[in-house]
């Protein structure tokens, strides 16, 4: 039997996601588990502030600690009972986690957001770590300088060819990594920070209660819901969700969640028969949660979720769509709970009728006057307001397809690795006051419905007939790549890879406006990681 076959049993998330489904109550606590399982290699320091060698000199996210424990199991012979693993990860994430401010800019890797091109990668990280990892992977750890240096030594031992890789072999990579990069990491991402001391000292809000939710799933579209969160054990909740997709069909589900580090919400929920994961961050006051929800077995199929603590108070979360054309009638879906039905979008936009109202949403039909002033409007629902909620526009001047850079991976065809899809949305812009599209005063119209097509990205792709082999896109903007394996029809039996452009076209009255994104359909990823 191949050694990894058992590892497939639970594909992603491990104890982090599954804490949501299982009790974390245990007779044994984190330090005791460390003492009983880790001291063959680690040692007790005698310092109560940092009691264990190596372990006490690091802080990580729940997924970061899960990754460490996975490595200890697969590479170092650690064997832990599942319930002890859950308790230990919870203990480490709670006592040696990251403060909200320390994760705020890098949450995309925790959320498994696809097709992210990282911005503002520190120079010393770009030359040292990003050949293999996201910049966020190191940015979501805090260590002493000595521990950052030990991480370099670990890589030299575990990946002996690391000095020979492109971008490494033409310079003294090891010396630079050890004496420059690790030192800068120790300065930029140190073990002790004010943000962490402050967060540790702060009382943490309980998250039980009624939440007004809005979100998006690529194959189902926008949705609104009320999520009831009931306390189970400490930092562990039962969840019930009820709501509607934009087309009016019902959404129902139930699950559970665990909160790590006082704000890291990890939920496992079954919605309409589909297993989903929630990776949210609660705000420091516990009144808002934001993050991503995705299909457990197809993580590309997910989208942003915004939740506002409602309980019995009137709560306004979002409105879709977020634009209305001059002279047009438009149905607006307003996500929120306990809302009045008195809706206003200012002068020149008239509420024609309230179509429906339920616990999770208010659906209204509005009409913009042909001469209604162009620009962003504040939405008022009773006393609740949402600024820059709906844009009144004259015409769609340009369309951007998001994500602009993307990959999909071939798969399936009888092999064990599924296809990795890619999904797209069209964002519209009006030209703004200067009448020129592509300038700073362009007016964002939010997501607009589009039709979808593909074309060869360049002459090479055209010559290699990539369009025929690499995959197809459906009416919802979901691209499904081609089959895995060698393709004898192609030159050199090339895989069904391809270099494509995704074209999204928005109808605007009699006009059509298109935008394009780049899609590389490429080969499988044979290493699945909790943090890429």
């Amino acid at each position: 039997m191949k050694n990894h076959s058992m590892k497939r049993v639970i594909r992603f998330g491990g104890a982090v996601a599954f804490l949501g489904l299982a009790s974390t109550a245990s007779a044994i606590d984190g330090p005791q588990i460390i003492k009983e399982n880790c001291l063959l290699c680690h040692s007790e320091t005698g310092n109560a502030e940092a009691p264990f060698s190596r372990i006490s000199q690091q802080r990580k996210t729940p997924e970061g600690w899960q990754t460490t424990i996975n490595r200890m199991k697969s590479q170092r012979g650690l064997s832990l009972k599942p319930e002890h693993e859950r308790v230990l990860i919870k203990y480490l994430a709670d006592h040696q986690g990251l403060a909200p401010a320390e994760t705020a800019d890098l949450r995309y890797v925790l959320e498994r957001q696809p097709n992210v091109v990282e911005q503002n990668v520190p120079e010393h990280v770009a030359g040292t770590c990003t050949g293999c990892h996201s910049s966020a992977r190191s940015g979501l750890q805090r260590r002493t300088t000595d521990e950052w240096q030990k991480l370099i030594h670990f890589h030299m031992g575990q990946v002996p060819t690391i000095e020979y890789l492109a971008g490494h072999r033409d310079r003294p990579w090891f010396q630079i990594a050890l004496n420059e990069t690790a030192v800068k990491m120790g300065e930029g991402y140190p073990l002790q920070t004010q943000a962490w001391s402050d967060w540790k000292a702060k009382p943490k809000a309980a998250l039980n209660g009624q939440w007004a939710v809005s979100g998006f799933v690529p194959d189902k579209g926008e949705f609104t819901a009320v999520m009831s969160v009931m306390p189970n054990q400490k930092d562990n909740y039962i969840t019930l969700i009820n709501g509607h997709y934009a087309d009016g069909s019902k959404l129902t589900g139930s699950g559970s969640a665990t909160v790590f580090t006082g704000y890291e919400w990890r939920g496992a929920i079954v919605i309409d028969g589909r297993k989903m994961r929630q990776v949210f961050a609660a705000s420091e006051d516990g009144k808002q949660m934001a993050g991503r929800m995705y299909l457990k077995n197809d993580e590309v199929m997910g989208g942003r979720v915004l939740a506002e603590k409602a309980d019995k108070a009137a709560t306004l979360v979002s409105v879709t769509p977020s634009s209305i054309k001059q002279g047009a009638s438009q149905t607006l879906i307003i996500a929120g709970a306990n809302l009045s039905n008195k809706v206003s979008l200012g002068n020149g936009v008239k509420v024609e009728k309230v179509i429906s109202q339920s616990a999770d949403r208010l659906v209204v039909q509005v009409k913009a006057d042909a001469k209604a002033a162009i620009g962003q409007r504040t939405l008022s629902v009773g006393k609740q307001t949402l600024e820059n909620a709906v844009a009144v526009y004259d015409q769609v001047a340009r369309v951007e397809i998001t994500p602009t850079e993307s990959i999909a991976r071939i798969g399936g065809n009888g092999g064990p690795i599924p296809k990795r899809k890619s999904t797209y949305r069209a964002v519209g812009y009006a030209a703004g006051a200067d009448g020129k599209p592509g300038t700073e005063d362009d007016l964002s119209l939010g997501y607009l419905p589009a039709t979808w097509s593909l074309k060869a990205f360049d002459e090479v792709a055209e010559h290699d007939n990539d369009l025929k082999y690499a995959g197809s896109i459906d009416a919802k903007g979901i691209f499904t790549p081609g089959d895995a394996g060698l393709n004898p029809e192609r030159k050199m039996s090339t895989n069904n890879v391809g270099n494509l452009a995704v074209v999204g076209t928005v109808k605007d009255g009699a006009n059509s406006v298109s935008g394009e994104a780049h899609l590389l359909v490429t080969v499988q990823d044979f290493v699945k990681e909790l943090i890429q």
Partner: protein
Amino acid sequence: MHMYLHEEVLKQMKHLKSFNKKAKMLDAAVSQGDVEEVVAMQSVVGCTSVNDPGWEVDPFGGLGSLCQPMESDLYGCADACWWPAQVPDTMSSHPNWSQDVAKADEDWRKIDAIFPESE
């Protein structure tokens, strides 16, 4: 031990380059600085930016300079830890990965990914 590894690595590097003459030509044509700039623009999280050759994306943001079909050179990459975050390295971390599949281009359906170990 180290000498052995280094020799193996050099053998693998030679092997990779012979598979990838096109990439070598392109490498020669474009200065390293230019290539790094292109790669920085094109790297999507999860893809390696080790690009001699690349795994998912070549140095120019396309596919033309990758080893294709990838099954033909898969084990050459795995042996050398060339992209250890994308292809399991059989030198160190995952020595038994695909040990039962001698010919990747014939039996690719038997090759699975390494998943995060869990309970």
